[in-house]
């Protein structure tokens, strides 16, 4: 369809705003990369992976412990949140009485709006005191994973909900006609058909977990070390930036932008993976 004269002018005037969306991510990546460049040129990207120590003021820049911390806390959070999210999406669509479907969805939307610092605060004041007697100071992997799981739960649950709702109803109806029940329909039809969208939703949630800063910062303990056990203090890539940025200068500061680059690479890899599959 071709646009008429006046419309063509309006389209021409509006087009730059749409392209702004393309310019902005490019600009962001360029700026982060430019700030990271000095230390990358000096040390090479590999040094950030091979060094096990992080002592930026002495020129030692190993990000391995932080990358491990981000991956571990994200994976644990997803392992906790995914079953909950999948059960939620199946139940509100197929099993729940009306009040519970409406109430459950409203609850998830409310939770999605709760600031991450509030989850961090609740973890500090309600969860950590339960652990502190046995595993002082109570901070570390377990609390972080639980906090993150609660944080990403609404993203994952609402995505699974939408994925299940999208599956055409004919399949389950056919399963019923065979004398089987709703659960049989879930296994035979709904889960296979919704699988791709469910996976996309869970990957989105994993990206959220990897990118979360403040909540984990409050409960991780933030020691630079490979996490060794459930109550080991650890640090994430995002936490590394937040802890040190306020006083970092020169190459140290540049190294924090390298942290951000690694984080960007991880999150974008997830987004690409997700885009390729769906």
């Amino acid at each position, binding site marked *: 369809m071709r646009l*008429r004269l006046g*419309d063509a002018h*309006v389209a021409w005037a509006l087009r730059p705003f749409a392209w702004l*969306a393309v310019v902005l991510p490019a600009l962001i990546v360029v*700026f982060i990369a430019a700030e990271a460049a000095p230390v990358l040129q000096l040390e090479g990207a590999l040094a950030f992976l091979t060094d096990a120590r992080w002592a930026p003021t002495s020129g030692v820049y190993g990000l391995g412990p932080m990358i491990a911390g981000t991956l571990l806390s994200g994976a644990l959070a997803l392992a906790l949140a995914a079953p909950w999210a999948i059960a939620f999406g199946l139940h509100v669509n197929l099993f729940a009485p009306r009040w519970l479907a409406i109430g459950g969805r409203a609850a998830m939307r409310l939770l999605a709006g709760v*600031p991450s610092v509030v989850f961090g605060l609740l973890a500090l004041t309600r969860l950590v005191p339960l652990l502190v007697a046995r595993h002082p100071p109570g901070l570390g992997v377990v609390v972080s994973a639980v906090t993150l799981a609660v944080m990403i739960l609404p993203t994952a649950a609402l995505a699974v909900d939408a994925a299940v709702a999208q599956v055409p109803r004919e399949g389950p109806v056919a399963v019923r006609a065979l004398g089987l029940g709703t*659960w049989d329909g879930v296994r035979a039809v709904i889960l296979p058909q919704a699988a791709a969208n469910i996976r996309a939703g869970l990957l989105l949630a994993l990206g959220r977990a990897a990118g979360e800063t403040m909540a984990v910062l*409050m409960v991780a303990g933030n020691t630079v070390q490979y996490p060794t056990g459930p109550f080991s203090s650890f640090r994430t890539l995002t936490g590394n930036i937040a802890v040190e940025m306020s006083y970092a200068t020169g190459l140290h500061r540049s190294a924090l932008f390298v942290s951000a680059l690694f984080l960007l690479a991880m*999150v974008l890899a997830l987004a690409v993976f997700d885009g390729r599959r769906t």
Partner: protein
Amino acid sequence: MTPAGRDRLAGVLLGVAPVAALMLVALVVVGVGLDGAPEVHAAFLTEAPTQAGRSGGIAPMLAATAWVLVIGIGTALPPGLAAAVYLAEFAQGGTRMVRVALDVLAALPSVVYGLFGMAFFCELLGFGWSVLAGGLTVAIMILPLFVRLCEAALVAVPADYRAAGAALGLPRWRLLGRVLLPAASPSIAAALVLASGRVLAESAVFLFTAGASTRTPHGLLEPGRVLAVHIYQLAVEVPGGGARAAATALVLLVGIVATTSGAALLPQLLLRRTAA
């Protein structure tokens, strides 16, 4: 086990999930309310903090939050709406790259926006730690969400309206101004409110761009500590700040719930008015 038996069992086991979600909401409300409610009174909202926030109020944080909210939403609205109008009404193919870019923007962690804002607005443009830098950075952060929602709002306008416009020989831009935008305005308003919720909940972006000063910002280029950052500072940096952190969280939660339930109700309210 019979099919009906399997269904009953599945219904009960899977039902734990939505019930637990409701309990989690209760836990958040009670967990914040128990510590926070006794601390919230009129003076808490109108006074400046003293003793690093252990006493006094949160008035400067309310002001800083209002600043970044107005700047962020005000900055994101015009280009966001223009992009959405282009994508929904005027684009003739070739928008795949724009959509991919919007997805990438939406996937970026907020700390990355924060670092970008710090390097670009605070340092390169010389805004320093300021509510202006914070507001502009958060505007970029909410842009993809806002464009997506506005585009969906325009696409959802019934096809009859467009057909009627075409039958009258109206150019598309006239149709847009007279019919499509007014018809989509309730959903666009809801999109604004949802984006506001995002701004209110954000902390990492503002820690890097607006700073953590407890003074009241009186201008665009002054630093300010938003409510979410105040909660973090009180909980982590101030020994004995827990109760005040919970009180601040309570105020913030009430603000967010009031805004977002507004988002749910707004379309109905506005539609009723235009229908009357």
